[in-house]
């Protein structure tokens, strides 16, 4: 308690949020503390107040298939950090909002977290559309923000840290693997918003680099669940592989209708999004048979950190938990990296925390050790190609170690901190 406390109390009174009795009590304590501090002539005492942090994730609506595991990971990570002493010996106090799969809710709640909760850090956002909806407000308020989800890459922003895997790690490996092991002709199906559009450009980019051929791209609006025409078209074009950049609960219908039409024997589905919404749990094993994906994290990873993490997760959420997704791992990594950086900086001050995050921080995550790339604010990941198995999970086929998030070095936030942009592939 101290002068800040008094200011907060006065501000609250001005906004009509406190009764007179609470005010008198509050000011009494605050004035008393201020007086004591003045008498002792000591520096500011160490606060034991909880640190407010914020989370924005979709618990309901069509995007909740991704939100649910991330929400569980967030609660788990906060409790884990708190049980180990919190940050700067203070506990974390999480304020979370259900953004209901609507982008305007994101903007509304992000503003609330920044202006009212005054969160030290905000983590969240699932679709790239939701992230881009709040990023202008994040930049305007100079708010520290973590985006913990696989995405189309390229965000280069001093206040933004992205712990998810990006195309230079995920699609470069998956497209390369496909051309070597499946065939050189690919047909892309992509969700019709910024993620699908930019990622399909990346697919084209990596295909042209490896001498592959793109037979076509179809953008599918998120509310489409009738894929009859798409399935006929795939049979006419006869690609060796179908690159699925499909997203959300409605698009699960594609995999089901693809299998029901008997296309599994004719072409192979490869995807950088399949599994993040636990599609392999919803679908029967024979419906998802042979679908090949590319992520840093799988529940099946055998390293000791992951084995302990999975067992703790099951203790907490029950052994019947569907499948712990790559996004859940990214969420866990995001919170822990931030906590590490705050403790290293010895302060909650935004610039000091960003400096600590940019100090080459690494963390022993369930996916393996990750290192935060100071220039791009993204992570160096190990990426594993894997295939669905009969137990609603994945079998790992091939591992690529320590892949850089920004191999072309486009983003340099150390040399040029004012780059508030997103890089996209140039296809000329």
């Amino acid at each position: 308690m101290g002068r800040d406390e008094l200011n907060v109390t006065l501000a609250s009174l001005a906004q009509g949020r406190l009764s007179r009795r609470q005010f008198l009590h509050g000011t009494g304590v605050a004035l008393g503390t201020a007086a004591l501090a003045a008498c002792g002539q000591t520096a500011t005492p160490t606060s034991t107040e909880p640190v407010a942090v914020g989370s924005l994730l979709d618990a309901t609506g069509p995007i909740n298939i991704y939100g649910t595991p991330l929400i569980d990971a967030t609660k788990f990570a906060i409790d884990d950090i708190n049980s180990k002493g919190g940050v700067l010996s203070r506990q974390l106090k999480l304020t979370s909002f259900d953004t209901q799969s609507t982008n305007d809710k994101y903007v509304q709640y992000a503003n609330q977290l920044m202006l009212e909760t005054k969160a030290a850090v905000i983590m969240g956002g699932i679709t790239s559309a939701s992230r881009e909806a709040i990023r202008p407000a994040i930049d305007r308020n100079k708010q520290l923000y973590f985006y913990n989800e696989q995405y189309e890459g390229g965000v280069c922003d001093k206040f933004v840290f992205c712990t998810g895997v990006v195309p230079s790690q995920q699609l470069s490996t998956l497209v390369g693997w496909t051309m070597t092991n499946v065939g050189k002709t690919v047909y892309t199906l992509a969700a019709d918003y910024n993620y699908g559009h930019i990622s399909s450009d990346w697919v084209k980019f990596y295909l042209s680099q490896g001498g592959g051929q793109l037979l076509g791209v179809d953008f599918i609006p998120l509310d489409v669940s009738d894929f009859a025409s798409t399935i006929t078209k795939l049979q006419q074009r006869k690609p060796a592989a179908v690159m699925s950049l499909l997203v959300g609960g409605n698009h699960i219908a594609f995999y089901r209708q693809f299998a029901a039409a008997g296309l599994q024997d004719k072409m192979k589905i490869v995807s950088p999004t399949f599994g993040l919404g636990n599609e392999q749990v919803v679908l029967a094993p024979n419906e998802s048979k042979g679908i090949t994906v590319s992520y840093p994290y799988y529940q099946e990873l055998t390293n000791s950190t992951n084995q302990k993490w999975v067992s703790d997760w099951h203790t907490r959420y029950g052994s019947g938990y569907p499948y712990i997704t790559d996004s859940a791992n990214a969420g866990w990594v995001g919170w822990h990296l931030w906590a590490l950086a705050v403790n290293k900086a010895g302060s909650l001050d935004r610039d000091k925390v960003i400096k600590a995050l940019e100090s080459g921080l690494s963390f022993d995550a369930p996916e393996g050790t990750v290192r935060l790339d100071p220039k791009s604010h993204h992570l160096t990941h190990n990426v594993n190609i894997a295939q669905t198995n009969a137990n609603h999970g994945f079998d790992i086929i091939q591992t690529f170690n320590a892949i850089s998030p920004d191999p072309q070095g486009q983003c340099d936030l150390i040399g040029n901190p004012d780059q508030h942009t997103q890089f996209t592939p140039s296809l000329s």
Partner: protein
Amino acid sequence: MHLDQVVAIVVSVLGSVATLLIVSLGLAVIFGLMRVINLAHGEFLMLGAYAALTATRIGVNIWVSILLAGVSVGIFGLVVERLLIRHLYGRILDTMLATWGLSLVLVQAVTLIFGPSTNGIGTPLGSLHVGSYSFSQYSLVLIFAAAAMLTIVFWVFTRTSYGVMARAAVQNPSMAQALGINTARTNMVTFALGSSLAGLAGGLLAPTAGVVPSLGQAFIAQSFMTVIVGGPGVITGTSAASGVLGGSYNLVSYFTTPFIGQAALLVIAIVLLRLMPQGLSGNWRRQL
């Protein structure tokens, strides 16, 4: 174009038409015939899907489960009519508000009971090969089911005494009452029948898609558009509209992309309503 390709395209187009018809038929009865704007129609579909899901999970045969979906949502519709709708006949705005509220309640209730995550039923039957093309046998089931539902509804409303009474009760309630028809009861039965068709639609579509509480949102706009474009010939108009809209969506998607297919569907609906404000069946000589 080879013969096998033509067959594949025809089956795929018929599949899209059948899907649209299946999801719209219940609304054609409730909105087209009874003039009740049921904004919870999508959620009735969703309840049907969850009913079929629950039944298959406890070991009921999938085909029986789909029928059970129709029966259970029909009973649910009956309860809704008694508690809510019957007080609001003729009050269009109030009905919209009440059924919209009902849709929100249903989505949240299902989320609380079944959780927010996606569930599913595997598609039954296998695939059928024609030349170098193949398609799901279940899409043939959908086409057959659409035709059967259409025939039965048409027969019920044109060839049975209940059907005549139900139409009379909606078209001229006071005259119907003067002739001794219990309009309150016929309306109740008609609403339950429409709900049951919606439930059946949900059950039929469950094995082709993921079952989520927000399932209804994907279908509500399409089904209203189909019924409105169909016009006053509730059954014939709705089937014609399903044919035009579903067919054009599928063909345009096939020759371009699904994005343009959706745009084409909307443009065609707008143009049709501009040229034929009464809907497709506005000038038809028809019974229903």
